[in-house]
């Protein structure tokens, strides 16, 4: 079992047990993940590295409730999500997970403000409360003055900051970042990594990041390697 615990004494917020994921390609069964065991504590910043096809994104999808395992379990904050129905899993994601993608995946027709507001539309917050949350999130990522800009009016680094603001605006339990710096230049990438570190250090966020970039991985508390579906430190 891999236990990643920066604080040592804190209780694991994510517990992965004997997690396996298989896919069928034609008649061939692919074992993408094989019996993964993993504990991650509150406030950890964990990087996952490995060659393409090693199962990094699949592991992230399973922990984030985007996919269901072939066997094993994922427990987040005491709730075993691997047994939840699709509808419940959707609601669970809205409450617990903030997603950051390599290509930012902002809605091009919405302003930065509206993009960040999206997860809050699923809550019972009033318009004024939503506005307050969005403004706080945008200020946190340094884009308070860019609220009315559409994604095409922002640089790649700024778009990724908006995506991070969207991921944290609903105060999710943890962030899943899939190659968050993969499409950025070095300077912008460093800015994003600084921001993720700040979220962990100053706001106690838990961040799980998939990356190919060793310099990005260095910013994490721990780097885990996946190869052919097997996890190692």
């Amino acid at each position, binding site marked *: 079992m891999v236990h990643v615990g920066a604080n040592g004494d804190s209780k694991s917020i994510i517990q992965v047990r004997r997690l396996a994921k298989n896919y069928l390609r034609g008649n061939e069964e692919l074992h993408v993940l094989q019996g993964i065991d993993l504990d991650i504590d509150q406030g950890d910043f964990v990087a996952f590295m490995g060659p393409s096809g090693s199962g990094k994104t699949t592991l992230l999808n399973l922990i984030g409730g985007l996919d269901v395992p072939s066997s094993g379990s994922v427990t987040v904050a005491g709730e075993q999500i691997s047994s939840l129905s699709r509808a419940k899993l959707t609601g669970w994601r809205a409450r617990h997970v903030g997603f950051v993608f390599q290509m930012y995946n902002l809605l091009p*027709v919405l302003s930065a403000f509206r993009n960040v507001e999206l997860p809050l539309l699923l809550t019972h917050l009033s318009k004024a409360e939503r506005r307050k949350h969005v403004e706080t999130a945008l200020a946190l990522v340094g884009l308070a003055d860019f609220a009315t800009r559409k994604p095409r009016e922002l640089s790649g680094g700024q778009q990724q900051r908006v995506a991070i603001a969207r991921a944290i605006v609903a105060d999710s339990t943890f962030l899943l970042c899939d190659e968050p710096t993969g499409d950025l230049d070095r300077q912008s990438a460093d800015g994003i990594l600084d921001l993720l570190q700040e979220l962990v250090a100053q706001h106690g966020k838990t961040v799980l990041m998939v990356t190919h970039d060793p310099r990005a991985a260095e910013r994490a508390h721990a780097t885990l390697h996946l190869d052919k579906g097997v996890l190692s430190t």
Partner: protein
Amino acid sequence: MKFWPLLFANLGRRKLRTALTAGSFAVAIFLFCLLLAIRAGFQQGVEAAGADRLLVINKFSFIQPLPVAHRDRILQVPGVEEATFASWFGGIYQDPKNMFPQFAIDHRTYRDVFSEFLVPEAEWQAFAADKMGAIAGEGIARRFGWKVGDRIPIKDSPYGSYFEFNLRGIYTGARPHDDLTQFWFRWDYLDEKGPVEMKGRVGWYTARVKPGAAMAVVARDIDARFANSAFETRTQSEQAWMASWLEQMGNIELLMLVIGSVVLFTLLLVTGNTMAMSVRERTSELAVLKTIGFGDGAVLVLVLAEGALIAAVGGGAGILLAKLFTLGGDPTGGFFPAFRLPGSAVVAGAGIALAVGLLAGLIPALTAMRLHVVQALRRL
């Protein structure tokens, strides 16, 4: 309400496409409403016909006259409360294109039988006192700018080359669908000035039946009274006569239905295709929405709402256009005396627009709802 910005932003993504789709809705619903207005125009005669009135015409043809003396004998038939008569005039006012119905009426009885036509008492008395007097419907008076006191020349009628009338009154209708395009003048004036062979002849009778009397029995008794005479009659209810006249023009309803269905089916295909394209283009965005917690139902409703919103805007515009068009009055110059957009057409137009909008969006919405997040994200 909090989803409106997202909805509007999606519709504003391809403004021209959204406008064209809404425009196609507007045109289709405009046509649909217009078809219903035309249908209502055809049906207007049936709707306006009195439920307690019988029409008595010459057994052999509507254009064959009947003797004026028939009235007294019709009144003797049990169940008949009142009877009046009229003759079709068929003259031309200024230009042959100015079509409107002109009737020589019995000024002593006509108002008693056709109580839905309202004439101010003073105007009616002035009409009754002037043998050359005439009364025009509000619609026709407005069309030609007539006012009480005007002298109206009418030429080239089968009854003679030139007649002049003094407009003594203007009638209105008690119901919205009453025909306000008729022109009445006194039958005794026609009888006096018309050709010798038409003296003492009328076009048809209208008899009002007493409450509770069986229309079919009274009609049969009227015809029996004139059986084997030189002027046998054919009597039927005014509504049945109007309906049979409508039938002679073919199955208008079927025609309307076919045209309407083709228009709407085409609209369904066009809109459905547009919506499907719109959803396909946004697969990744929909996947992101689902990733961050938008459920299947929310995504389904969002896509359906887009179709419904386009339908509401386009359909509303179509209904408004149809309303404005019909407010202009009869576009045929007299064929549809009470050309109007019925309330039922507005409801049907709105309902069909919404149904087509939802139906067109249903398959794309279901596709969006079933979108597998992981597979969609993998394609990014």
